[in-house]
């Protein structure tokens, strides 16, 4: 029984409920640098799609310059960066820096992958607003996006260009 215990109708109803909770966003999910592992990025992309958003997946091994260009052309308001190579300490701040240089200060950056706790404060300082590690329930991204939208609506700083130190979690 491949679908034992799974109430398909219930699943669809829940998805509808989730998708109506906010306006659809355009979100880029990117793999910066020399890193061929994208299972995590694909799970995130799929979860965001299922929450009703338009997700642009970049594919592997993109430079920070390419990623910023993609965000610009796609008019995306959120970027998720995934890195399992250990180079997050360079790549994530570089993307933040280039976003600010391109005038894309209102874009919200979040990250995921193998990111040790000790590395996280520096990433938050560079403008990353959330970091999700392995095992994160997909609902967490949706809650994070809800919070981002609430902050936007109430004019609280949330974009990569704001010097406010707010971050998720």
């Amino acid at each position, binding site marked *: 029984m491949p679908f034992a215990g799974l109430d398909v109708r219930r699943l*669809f109803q829940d*998805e*509808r409920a*989730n*998708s109506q909770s906010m306006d*659809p966003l*355009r979100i880029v999910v990117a793999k910066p640098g020399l890193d061929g592992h994208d299972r995590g990025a694909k799970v995130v*992309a*799929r979860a*965001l*799609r*299922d*929450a*009703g*958003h*338009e*997700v*642009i*997946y*970049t*594919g*592997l091994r993109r*430079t920070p*310059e*390419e990623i910023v*260009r*993609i965000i*610009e*052309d*796609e*008019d995306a308001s959120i970027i998720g960066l995934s890195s399992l190579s250990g180079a997050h300490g360079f790549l994530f701040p570089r993307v933040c820096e280039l976003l600010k240089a391109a*005038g*894309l*200060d*209102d874009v919200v950056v979040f990250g995921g992958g193998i990111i040790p706790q000790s590395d996280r404060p520096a990433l938050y300082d560079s403008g990353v607003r959330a970091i999700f590690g392995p095992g994160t329930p997909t609902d967490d991204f949706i809650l994070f996006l809800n919070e981002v939208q609430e902050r936007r609506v109430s004019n609280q700083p949330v974009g990569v260009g704001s010097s406010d130190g707010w971050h998720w979690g």
Partner: protein
Amino acid sequence: MVGIGDDSMTNSELASQAAAGSRRALARLLTLIQDGESESIESVANIENVKSIGITGPPGVGKSCLTDCLASFWAGKGERVGVLCIDPSSPITGGSLLGDRMRMEQSGVDDRIFIRSVATRSSFGALPFRLKAMISALSLAGMDRILIETVGVGQTEIGIVSMTDSVLLVDGPDRGDIVQAEKAGLLELADVIVVNKGDLDGAEQAAANIRSGLALGNSESIPVLVVSALNKIGIDELIYALENVQVRSSVEEIRWRHRLTSALLDQIHSDSKFDSTVNDLVEGRIALEQAIQIILNE
């Protein structure tokens, strides 16, 4: 007023910034057009559209890779190329996973190439609404050529014929999927047909099968080429074929038929009465025949 970041501006300011070469302004203009924002659609209404090519074919034959290849070829000749990659939206959640960029690695950060992923949204599986206005926005922004990649060769994708000046149909070796295109009547509507992945066995055979299929329908004049987008084989010949497409009167009539149909559909969907009429239908207040009367009687 529409905004980019903290700057708010009028629709016409946004359009003139896009025309002056601002990628952000063009990107935002495309968003507003797809959202159905009427002033943005009007701001590009009188633009003369540049040459456009529709690229279609079954999933997995290498359309994105070939589109990437063509865009960087023309960009290398100094042209500015706009690319629209169309992917379906989920009818359940409305969400969409736009993955064409995975296969578009050459276009990278070339300033002459502008790529935009477009979800089909409420047109569910067919071509997205307001595609014509998006082509106009890219034309306004100074593109010399526009490529539109769309998935599938079913009855709905045939609409690409109405949107672009020419259609490139892509197939792979040993697939047999082109039979679907034949069924839908797209085979005869294509201006150029390629069998991609020409480095694999069976490519020449697939091309021969397509040629004999065309001969049965008196459409032998349509070029059928074997290319490899990955290894850049046969691309020069493909470019030549695309730049020398012959106008066929039999196709022109079908083209205008589709153009008129999709323009009418776009207009109906942008009418505020449409949504309220759908609601009336859902609530059982009116019958379908009445709904048609309400929408058609201005």
